[in-house]
């Protein structure tokens, strides 16, 4: 019998990969955004499987709940057109068209193979950690302590970054300054 962890991993993993493939291959940008939201929800499930409920919930609040709504607004307001299908191969145009696209698709496959090969050398040496680590990792208090003591400089820098990004976004998108 396979454990619940494995079932959830394969289930959420399959949903994530399928949704991401759909994002990359859909021609209508609205559908791409919706599939990406599905991918984020499946990723949140994977985070819960990894004993990180805070990260899972933050993923839903920040990514699926805010950034994707921003994308949806832009898609709706620009009335983003469907992409021109310039290939005689129809829906399979993503990989089978001329010259540069074929080369890029090949490069992506090479990237996957390289990453998997690089991983095998690293991971075979380490051991999985025990269940007491789970309680430490899933505690929001520990995350808070780490953010505000060890990583407090990054925290302050990030807040300045968000302010700059807000001002920048407003200035860039204005019709006249």
């Amino acid at each position, binding site marked *: 019998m396979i454990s619940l962890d494995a079932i959830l991993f394969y289930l959420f993993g399959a949903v994530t990969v399928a949704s991401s493939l759909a994002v990359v291959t859909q021609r209508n940008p609205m559908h791409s955004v919706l599939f990406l939201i599905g991918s984020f929800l499946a990723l949140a499930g994977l985070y819960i499987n990894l004993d990180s409920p805070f990260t899972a919930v933050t993923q839903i609040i920040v990514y699926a709940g805010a950034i994707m709504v921003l994308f949806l607004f832009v898609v709706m307001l620009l009335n983003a057109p469907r992409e021109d299908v310039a290939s005689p191969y129809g829906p399979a145009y993503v990989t089978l068209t001329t010259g540069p696209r074929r080369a890029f698709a090949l490069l992506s496959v090479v990237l996957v193979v390289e990453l998997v090969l690089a991983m095998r050398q690293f991971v075979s040496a380490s051991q999985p950690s025990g269940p007491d680590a789970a309680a430490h990792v899933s505690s929001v208090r520990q995350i808070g302590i780490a953010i505000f003591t060890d990583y407090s400089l990054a925290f302050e820098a990030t807040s300045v970054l968000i302010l*700059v990004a807000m001002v920048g976004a407003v200035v860039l998108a204005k019709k006249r300054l």
Partner: protein
Amino acid sequence: MEPTLTHYLALSAVLFSIGTAGVFLRRNLITVLLSIEIMLNAVNLTFVAAGRHFGTVDGQVIVFFVMTVAAAEAAVGLALIIALFRHKESLSPDVFTSLKW
């Protein structure tokens, strides 16, 4: 078969490559930005899995910051797309060639 760190890293590698393929292959600026978000999420998954493996919260803290940076980058990227669209009425990267030699 218990999902070990290897499984999570393999999943993350696949997601990262899907994102990379999207950035290379798509001719619509919004879909390119979405593929960049896929890549960022693949990296998030790596950090959380590695953090869980080594029993520290540092993985999740880094993910917290990556999410914030991704939000800022998405906001500015979309503002740029709106400005570009207003200029040329098109979302295809092939149209914006005025800086080419």
